[in-house]
């Protein structure tokens, strides 16, 4: 059902990461880091980590998309998903 969820997750965090990296680079040395985050430029560093995570998710979704054209159910239905049942308790 639907598309690979890793695609939007990867895209969102890539955008967030990129945005924060740029903002962190521009505001380097600003007092906001001394005031809030113990002097660490968390925008730059955490932005970088978010960017890596986002790109990782994106490449994962691309890899999987190529390997399994009918993706979605790698383990699907190896097991019997419907238990046998007799009449009387029939499906509505």
């Amino acid at each position, binding site marked *: *059902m*639907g*598309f690979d*969820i890793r695609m*939007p*997750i990867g*895209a*969102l*965090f890539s*955008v*967030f990461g990129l*945005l*924060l990296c740029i*903002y*962190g680079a521009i*505001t380097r040395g*600003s*007092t*906001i*880091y*001394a*005031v*809030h*985050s*113990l002097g*660490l430029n*968390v*925008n730059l560093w*955490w*932005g970088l980590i*978010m960017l890596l*995570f986002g790109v990782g998710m994106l490449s994962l979704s691309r890899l999987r998309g190529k390997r399994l054209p009918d993706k*979605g*159910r*790698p*383990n*699907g*239905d*190896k*097991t*019997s*998903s*419907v*238990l*046998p*049942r*007799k009449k*009387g*308790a029939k*499906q*509505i």
Partner: protein
Amino acid sequence: MRPEPQWIDYVVILIYFAFVLGIGYVLKKYMKTSADFFLSGRSIPAWITGLAFLSANLGAQEVIGMGASGAKYGIMTSNFYWIGAIPAMVFVGIFMMPFYYGSRARSVPEYLKLRFDEKTRGFNAISFAVMTVFSSGVSMYAMGKLLQLLLGWNFNGAILVSALIVLAYTFLGGLTSAIYNEVLQFFLIVIGFIPLVFLGLKDVEGWAGLKARLANEALVHTWKYMANASDNPMGVEWFGMIMGLGFVLSFGYWCTDFLVVQRAMAANSMTAARRTPLIAAFFKMFFPFLVILPGMIAGVVASSNLERASVQQSVVPGTPAQSSFYVGGRGIIPPKYDAEGQPLLRDGKVVLDYDLATPMMLVRFFPSGLLGVGLCALLASFMSGMAGNTTAFNTVWTYDIYQSYINKTASDRHYLWMGRFATVFGLGVSVVAAYVAKEFNNILDVLQLVFAFVNAPLFATFMLGMFWKRATGHGAFCGLLSGTAAAAIHHGLTLPRGSLPGLKGGYLGSVLHVYPSEMAQNFWTAIFAWCTCFLVTVIISLFSRPRVAEELRGLVYSETDQPEELGLQWYEKPAPLAAVVVALAVALNLIFW
């Protein structure tokens, strides 16, 4: 000391909103039948339903509430996870999912219909439908109030915008859309809160430093002070904790609440459905470090950096002008204020606004930029809680009320349309409930109390239904009613220490027992309700006609073949996964003993 989000924070939030709406829009074309809309066509892989199972419960009340409890009760709060949620989640995955998923029921009330009878289903469906809509309204109100207090946003605007966004994506993409956004929320919470915990712990010099600063041994142990209720801040003793929270309340919630069970029902196979709660449990047990720890840190962290900041920042209107932190507050947790803007006092002590513990941590440690991501995580949890309630409501309404009692023979198209209509209707009622909560706080408190009474005995019914083939419909129905009544009577005859008869209990004339805390009273109310339901169900069942064993295949343990697990790796099988989860949970209990 209000934070001033910069343009960058709003850009981050707007991007998030755009993604959420985009997911709904893209999913619209996959919604062809009612099964697509309500059950995601039973086609979602386990890791996604697992994360959604976790996030659907991780609404704002959880994120804000667990931080508040962390500030109030310390690491003991993690008992809600390590003795509460985890065993129940393992149980539902291993023992109950075969019947939920295998019976092909489309909802929890429908399982009750298949196993017992129409009246049991009706009772559960109607109480659940009313409950979800109102609790969604209550959390909407909480969100509006918080955003108003914290960021100065408009109460009406915050409620309307978030309700419209949730409406748009659940209307378009149904359960799949809700599940996808829950997974997104999971990552937002994790990625948004890790730096918060990191910076907070760094500031207080780690766990050891936090322990030293809290200067209260009872706040840093989960079990050590549980022998006597009076020794620990929660006012609960070990038996009430294990039986009340660990058994009755947690199993009642995680095993029978359609809001979470619906996620597992959307899984693409029986094993995936059974793995869903186990995958959720694996991550769930580490969440105390993300949501409780910030609350604990908020109580001890110095606001010295804020002192410097406060020069540039405006003062919340209605609060006394002060340059640094709040007079009478603890750490960065502000006191509650009365109408004149003075700190609220009770018994000569300042009443703290613990619900602000986690939000204040975001404001304290996150500079603009990251603050936007943190606010996104908060907003995401508000919205996915709302969406979870909405999708559960529209399914129960359409399948268990509309299709069962109002219009039995319509086309699938019609039910799909009804599901969308129920989404609009449910969210509309929630918005109304949010405003009712704003005007008349007490009405909703009474409602929530009634819901708690209805929920407390539920697990006894499911347990007997799934594991005792002799249980009958009459037994289950009478058990549920008497269990609910027992909860109300027990609550009406007891009081938590220091409360007056009224909403807190004692309204039946005489007070037979005084509990050390409200939490202890809640746990024992649940225990009484469960035992009553269990006994009454057993007795009435023995006096009523049992169903033929044939009819119970796939519904009761003894009449059902165990699901086969051919061709799976050990780590794909539910049982070994469950063993790993339980072992880790035991280890966590011992480490923070």
